[in-house]
């Protein structure tokens, strides 16, 4: 039964690859790529941004006055050799309007475009083989993101021009299954099970193969009077399919554990926080705690970014912290009282007049306060 299941799996995979691989089955051209360093921002603003583990990316920070950001790069490749274009990007809004533009040497003045699908914050590969404008030599490509941009801002890692064919499709499918899914803020809610964008999820293929194998085995067993064993055979296939999915998950988990140990292994509690992604907030709050009286002081934690606000508040306990977990509201000045502390961390809309010793909240009035601590982009005030 398990052999039948394995055969069904291979046959279905082969059928899928033959049916979907664009271009020649075994093309000669090798894939070509542009990385984030090969791009420039023709519209909007961006900067290169190095992230631990994920590598360097072009961070798209803002759009131009017409509401679009354009990331462009120069190419020189034969369109016929590359029927698939795969942009590697992340943190795009689910409803983002994203397009790819390109120019060719056939009509150099003409800018061609195609819509790109957004899934899981990334971009689905575009099959351009049948686009009538994908002709001649491709002299330049661009990615157009129509704003408003997501928060955190989109990241562009590069683009790969793929030659298509069966080996490329197989690599894409299997690579998608085993693509590393690092912990993120969304991990606690959902797992993609490999790459965010997958044309053929492993679970779909396994279920199709299991149905085929179970049906085939039953037909075979019925003729031989062995159908009584069908429930065991079906269970065996189900468990085998589950195990294959679990291998993918365990491999991902093992890789994540290795990364985690690299980041935090052998460190004490404090050093682990200092090595964490939010180390800057942690260290800042540690400095703030030195300036605060013994807990519990009433403390207001203000920051524009919700994660900074929440993490900052968390590190402030057991002080009696107030923060806005769901919005970014400022406190009313009238609600503050002498002895309260206000922590402002990368938060617009709060001004301090040193001469008048007044702390003013945009739309919320002002209150007398003294400065306890000032750092670039951050300050601590005590209400007097």
């Amino acid at each position, binding site marked *: 039964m398990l052999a039948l299941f394995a055969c069904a799996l291979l046959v279905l995979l082969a059928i899928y690859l033959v049916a979907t691989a664009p271009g020649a089955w075994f093309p000669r051209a090798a894939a070509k790529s542009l990385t984030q360093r090969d791009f420039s921002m023709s519209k909007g603003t961006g900067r290169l941004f190095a992230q631990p583990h994920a590598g360097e990316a072009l961070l798209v920070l803002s759009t131009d006055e017409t509401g679009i950001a354009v990331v462009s790069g120069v190419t020189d490749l034969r369109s016929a050799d590359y029927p698939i274009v795969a942009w590697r990007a992340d943190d795009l809004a689910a409803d983002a309007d994203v397009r790819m533009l390109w120019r060719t040497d056939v009509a150099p003045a003409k800018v061609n475009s195609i819509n790109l699908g957004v899934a899981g914050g990334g971009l689905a590969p575009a099959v351009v083989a049948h686009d009538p404008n994908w002709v001649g030599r491709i002299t330049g490509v661009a990615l157009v993101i129509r704003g408003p941009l997501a928060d955190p801002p989109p990241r562009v890692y590069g683009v790969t021009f793929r030659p298509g064919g069966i080996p490329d499709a197989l690599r894409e499918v299997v690579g998608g299954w085993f693509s590393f899914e690092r912990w993120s803020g969304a991990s606690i*809610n*959902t797992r993609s099970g*490999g790459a965010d964008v997958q044309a053929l999820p492993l679970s779909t293929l396994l279920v199709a193969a299991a149905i085929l194998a179970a049906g085939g085995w039953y037909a075979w067993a019925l003729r031989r009077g062995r159908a009584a064993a069908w429930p065991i055979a079906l269970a065996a296939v189900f468990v085998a399919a589950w195990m294959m999915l679990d291998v993918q998950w365990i491999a991902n988990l093992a890789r994540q554990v290795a990364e985690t140990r690299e980041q935090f292994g052998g460190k004490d509690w404090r050093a682990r926080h200092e090595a964490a992604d939010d180390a800057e907030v942690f260290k800042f709050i540690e400095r703030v705690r030195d300036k605060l009286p013994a807990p519990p002081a009433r403390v207001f934690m203000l920051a524009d970014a919700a994660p900074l606000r*929440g993490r900052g*508040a968390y590190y402030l306990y*057991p002080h009696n912290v107030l923060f806005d977990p769901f919005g970014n509201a400022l406190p009313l000045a009238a609600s503050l009282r002498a002895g309260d502390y206000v922590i402002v961390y990368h938060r617009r809309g709060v001004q301090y007049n040193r001469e008048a010793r007044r702390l003013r909240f945009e739309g919320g009035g002002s209150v007398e306060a003294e400065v306890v601590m000032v750092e670039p982009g951050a300050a601590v005030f005590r209400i007097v």
Partner: protein
Amino acid sequence: MLTLAAAVAWLPGVAALLALRRPGPVAAGEGAWIAGAGFLLGAFGLTLWMRVLSRFGVPFGGTVIALPLVIVSLVALAYAWRRDRFDARAWPARLLQSFQARDLAKWERILWFSLIAWLALRFALLAAEVASRPLYPWDAWTQWATKARVWYELRHIAPFARVAEWYAAGGSVYFDASPEYPATMPLLQVFTCIMLGRWDDVLMNAPWWQMAVALAFAVYGGLRLLGATATAAIISTFLAASLPLANVHVALAGYADLPLAACYAAAAIALMRWSRERGPRNAAVAVVLAIACTQIKNPGWFWAATLVPAAVVVLLPRHGLRVSMIAFAAVAFAIAAVARMKLSFFNYRLDLDFDPPWRDLFQSYFLLGNWNLLWFGVVVAAALAYKDLFSRSLVPMTMAVIGGLLFLFFVFAFTNASAFIADQTTVNRATLHLAPLMVCYMTLAYEAFARRFSSRESPTHAPA
């Protein structure tokens, strides 16, 4: 100290189950059930004791929490031993014998050891992750560990309140994102830190790993006690322990969903045992675990309520099914009526704008990597075993599962939570509460089908 903390949480539950068990030889799987469900009960009991201490103004401390629990546990163990004297020296040999599974066929033994090794690898990886990573997921540091931090430092339970009350209280209450959430999980974190002797928001999450291990034991033991073969039970244990989202909730510990799922599954299993063995013992265990659900997370009230139809069919074997079905219909009607008033329950707004995002739900359950093949398996098992689902042996769990699925359907179809399916947030966490039970149900239903099918197709039953 972590091991000691785990032992203190584990011992009272184990002692209680041993004291409650019916005198006589140990049934297959009973040891695993006692170990698994014992931890869930013991950990809950520990937090109840901490609430009592706080209520009477006794500051939290290692001795004041642990010592009375250990003494009471020893008394319960002594009672259990007096009532049903067993040879303690024979236990290691008996456990080894069960582990070696010599009565299984060769292929089954290979599977048995492979799955145990696989489970061990998984739990080792999860232990490495949970013991290294500082508190990571969002709600963990906006509404759960916030309480733990304050209570650990104050050494008693201090109240948390919403913003308006916080302002009005003038510093006597604290604030976080969900001040009304129950204290059980933060108290377990507090206890772990007290035993460690320091605030450590990495190691304080060890109870999540312990809960996952306990769930695995409870599933194995529970299914064996409900008549599953050793092979079916170990496979189910593997399936329940390998649900990717459940594993994520161990690795990124700090949410209350996995502990709720563990207690809910164990409560349903205890209820099933009650339906088969009768007597008040299993009913008591089911009730305590159902109460634990309500004290772990607010939706636990609804989950506990989904066990009521199951209890009804146990209490009223002849008319229970009809009564439960009428009750389901009445609840549906009441919800439809109440929904017109646009009320809110636990931050979920009821309305009649029926628009469940089926496509996203399908994606979550069947295509993404949250559940492996759980929902395919459940659908197939239920379809194949449709004749057995309302049989006397399965009907209580069927009612619990129907109640659970209706609850999920209601939340996603008739409340503002439907938005959480589209963005793949709460949909999977809410489903996690039901998932381990679905694994057990799938196993029992499939076994019932397999027995019926095999006896029908067996050559000995073929017409001459």
